[in-house]
């Protein structure tokens, strides 16, 4: 509510005092715990990660180890940032990554819980950093079209593609591989992630040729990595910062069914 009043008068939110409860863990083999950090002087215009920068600068000056978290582009496209904020992947705002979340989404006096994305297939590396190489391995199992890259192919306009299919393929391909879908799912399922890649290719003539092998190989790898079954709750779509649609899961199920029947 507090922020609504600020917004109504078009004021900058300044000097917020917050309590951060942050997951600290030395490495993959040690136990972690939540640690409280009071912080003040936070402005509404700061991004969530800039707020953590402020905390880390204070910790470094005190000689303490700063909180480690993954981040890189800080504009919502690289998919590095992966914080579970107050129980939600990427926090309370919709269609944003953690780096695009701003402190004006919080109120003076708030307590904010910050944890890594939780899943057996995403072991913690340190503090808020997780290992998402399981996602890479799913892609390596078949997330590509098997053409060589020497350029000796047909002209780009030799095969027209229906615009709607091309747009749907693009929308599926905008997945940034952050893992919010897995973190949002009570079963830690990777169906949304995997189905987005399967869909991108299934919708294009270039990808159809290997569609059967691809969906089988990627689903097999997904299961081997220890991701859970789809919970059908749609939490993944809701929390996805890029709005990847559940339709992709339905499409992958169809592809998988027909691959299994064929096989």
């Amino acid at each position, binding site marked *: 509510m507090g922020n609504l009043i600020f917004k109504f008068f078009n004021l900058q939110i300044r000097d917020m005092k917050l309590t951060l409860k942050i997951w600290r863990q030395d490495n993959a083999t040690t136990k972690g715990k939540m640690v409280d950090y009071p912080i003040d002087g936070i402005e509404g215009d700061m991004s969530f990660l800039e707020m953590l920068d402020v905390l880390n600068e204070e910790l470094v000056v005190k000689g303490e180890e700063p909180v480690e978290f993954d981040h890189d582009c800080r*504009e919502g496209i690289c998919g590095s940032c992966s914080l579970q904020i107050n129980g939600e992947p990427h926090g309370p705002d919709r269609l944003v990554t953690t780096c*695009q979340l701003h402190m004006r989404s919080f109120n003076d006096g708030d307590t904010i819980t910050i944890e890594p994305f939780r899943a057996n297939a995403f072991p913690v590396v*340190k503090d808020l950093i997780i290992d*998402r190489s399981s996602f890479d391995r799913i892609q390596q199992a078949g997330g590509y079209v*098997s*053409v*060589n*890259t020497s350029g000796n192919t047909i002209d780009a306009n030799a095969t027209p593609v229906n*615009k709607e299919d091309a747009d749907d393929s693009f929308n599926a391909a905008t997945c940034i591989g952050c893992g919010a879908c897995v973190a949002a799912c009570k079963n830690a399922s990777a169906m949304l992630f995997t189905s987005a890649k399967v869909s991108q290719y299934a919708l294009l003539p270039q990808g159809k040729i290997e569609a059967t092998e691809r969906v089988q190989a990627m689903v097999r790898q997904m299961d081997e990595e220890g991701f859970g079954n789809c919970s059908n709750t749609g939490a993944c779509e809701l929390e996805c910062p890029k709005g990847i649609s559940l339709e992709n899961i339905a499409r992958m199920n169809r592809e998988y069914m027909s691959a299994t029947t064929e096989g």
Partner: protein
Amino acid sequence: MSVLDSKIPEGPLADKWTKHKNDINLVNPANKRNIDIIMVGTGLAGGSAAATLAELGYNVKTFCYQDSPRRAHSIAAQGGINAAKNYQGDGDSNYRLFYDTVKGGDYRSREGNVYRLAEVSGNIIDQCVAQGVPFAREYGGLLDNRSFGGVLVSRTFYAKGQTGQQLLLGAYSAMNRQINRGKIQSFNRHEMMDLVLVDGKARGIIARDMVTGEIERHSAHAVVLASGGYGNVFFLSTNAMGSNVMAAWRAHRRGAYFANPCYTQIHPTCIPVSGDHQSKLTLMSESLRNDGRIWVPKNKEDVLAIREGKKKPTDLSEDERDYYLERRYPAFGNLVPRDVASRAAKERCDAGFGVNKTGEAVYLDFKSAIERYGKEAAFKHGHKNPSDEEVTKLGKEIIESKYGNLFQMYQKIVDQNPYETPMMIYPAVHYTMGGLWVDYNLQTTIPGCYATGEANFSDHGANRLGASALMQGLADGYFVLPYTIGDYLSKDIRTGKIPTDSTEFDAAEKDVKDRIDRLMKASGKHSVDHYHKLLGKIMWNKCGMARNATDLQSALDEIKALREDFWANVKVTGKEDTKNAELEKAGRVADFLELGELFAKDALHRNESCGGHFREEYQTEEGEALRDDEHFKYVAAWEYTGNPRDAKLHKEDLTFNNIELKTRSYK
């Protein structure tokens, strides 16, 4: 001073690349299996090259500091990729793309390289479509194009505002295919700490496993650096937080010349700095200048009233606004090239007309476009006398369909609705045209060490055109390097595996460990970011959009003093044998503190203005860049001699046989 040989093949411009490919040596498939290549960086240039080299049969090891190759900063490129396909039938050709690029670079790039870039550009699009990259299409099913700055044709292919993402994921998927075949070993969360030379040739690297802190030795027959640009020397830039110059700088210290370090692109349309906490800057695509009009208030009283919140920009009438680009450049208006638009914004803000609390912002206004599109749409719907509300509603819909994702991004960051009130923008560091000097084969001055993409200097001269960075990265990676590196490796087929237990590897590893040790043991007064921010301020204020000899001279001294202070007083927390973000940053900032000094030296020596390099002493009466072709028509390649300011200059004269040297004018 020596004169560098660029090894441009003889013969007519259009035949050089074909002739060269026919002349160079090849490695037979059986021998490729015995040859190892190290690739540092997995963005467009590195990812595409790694995939193609592995496809050809070489054993490739890739290294990236991110947790996955898919996160390299190429992913953030928005607008598109140029290619001379001439699908629109609007008169495009390889020559025209070549011409636009050389002219856009203010005649400071190499003809032979740029023509080759244009020549292979069409093939990039074929290749990417075959790989399943979902480019934007028209209703007929064919590929769509859009226009970009500085050209008269529509040659830009795109995937909404995420072209870089789609192209990078294409290269990443090609890499994945080779990883699955066992031909690429991918080392993620690894940072190259040094280049190892054996008998004068690049034979490997020392890398740090960023999770365990382990220092590792990796050998190969050739090392390719595809590690991106160095815009983060300014601290604030549109680069990713981790983008750094370490790989290129370590190679420079080992003997690779660094070319034109002062050529930096300051992009005119970025979201302005909002406070001291700012960690990075966000670009708003160049495409917005097609429909947005740039202005500041005419009167200082209005400027102050706006800053104090007493007036809104929408309160100002047309005659109270100064559309300064339209005023100064009636022919090109808001679509002047990036360097010109950036300097004009700085000029207005320096004169006190900046519209935000820091005084460093101008307006980018879509009101006229919303009205124009709204009227057109109403007319098409058969409403000949539409109400103002209807016009605005329809106009906003059109703007949303064109730029919706950018408007959303702006609103999230600034918390203002750009459909209702003009955007605030200001120039920011975006891309570095300078980089490691390479010859036509993309080889640096160290035999066996290659540089591709933004890490090299070769194709964009003193200013890069929009949508050309993606083109260059993929051209180098898919189509150029895989050929040229074979010529070098053909002499290595009998060499056998390069051992890592040699004295050269011992010495390089010791250097790396000593350096880490020094950082960990410094006295510990200030954080790494403290130094990085101070360096950024010096760079921005004295080596930024406008430079002069006095400031550059003082920048040289200030950077040196800051570097000495850094090594004595930096505080690196944690331990060296664990994941340690502070240590990672410290190593990178240490190199920026050396590069910054060479940057200033290069800018000071170049007594002319060209492209992104604007020296205040060298301008026309109207304040435009004044080139000096008689004295500076060369590439400045610097040799490391132990101290950045003592770097030794080597020149590569640029010859223009196919294009006439002219002064750019946009009036």
